[in-house]
């Protein structure tokens, strides 16, 4: 038997259609799973930071406390400032700069080196003259004040 008859006789059309459908289904599901892996990992790595944010939200009900969430800085620097401040509070001041960078990397902050560099350039992190660094609360206050004036 040859030709289309042979194909029909051996259920060729069904086999081929089902086969390619299964291949597509499998790879679609795999691509969907892969696309979510890095988001899940991001969320897991930043769980401490999210926990701290929730904690602060709850604490804000009891006392009014300005957060560092709205400094007048570029968006990416704003985000890393927020995250780094939380990490610095955890490490304690004065802190070793390499430790902040390591800790930021472990907590999932992308480009931890350049993020810390941005904060150094914005003078939110300053040296203490003894090889360690401090968070600059004065500059942070000024940034928040100028933001309030602008709004």
């Amino acid at each position, binding site marked *: 038997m040859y030709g289309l008859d042979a194909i029909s006789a051996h259920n060729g059309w069904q086999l081929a259609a089902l086969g390619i459908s299964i291949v597509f289904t499998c790879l679609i599901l795999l691509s969907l799973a892969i696309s979510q892996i890095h988001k899940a990992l991001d969320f897991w790595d930043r769980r401490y930071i999210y926990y701290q944010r929730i904690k602060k939200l709850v604490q804000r009900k009891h006392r009014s406390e300005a957060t560092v969430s709205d400094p007048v800085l570029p968006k990416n620097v704003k985000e890393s400032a927020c995250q780094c401040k939380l990490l610095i509070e955890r490490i304690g001041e004065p802190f070793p700069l*390499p430790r902040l960078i390591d800790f930021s990397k472990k907590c999932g902050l992308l480009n931890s080196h350049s993020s810390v560099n941005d904060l150094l350039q914005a003078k939110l992190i300053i040296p203490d003259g003894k090889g360690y660094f401090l968070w600059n609360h004065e500059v942070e206050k000024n940034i928040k004040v100028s933001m309030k004036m602008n709004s």
Partner: protein
Amino acid sequence: MPVDINIIDSLNLFEDLSHAELEEIAFLMSRIRVTEGEAITRRGAPAHTIFILLSGNFMVFFKEGRSYTLHNKGDIIGLSTVVIPFYYTGTAVALSDGVVLSMPGQELLRLIESNPVMSDKIMKKINQIVSARLPFVTGRC
């Protein structure tokens, strides 16, 4: 590939040098691109190469996490190539992408030793920088 002499001319370390001296130095140098997070020196490793910042930002850290940062064109990393202990006392890591000039320390030493006038001009500046950084290395800040 030798570096353009105009780049070196603008650097603080070499500002007192003559054109001929600059040419000799330029011949020994090469430009290197560094990426964020890349370490160009490691504490304890033999100091073979000296680096001069052209662009970018660096952190140099020592024992117990003490560190300082370098952001300006002309800042130098790896001075231990020309002064004792001749091994890197700190680890230098790029905080952002940038470009550095690199020069084999032995070649710079040879140049300095063979040219007392140049030696005087360069070593004065190197000693000033070393003195400023020594507290970070020793921990006696």
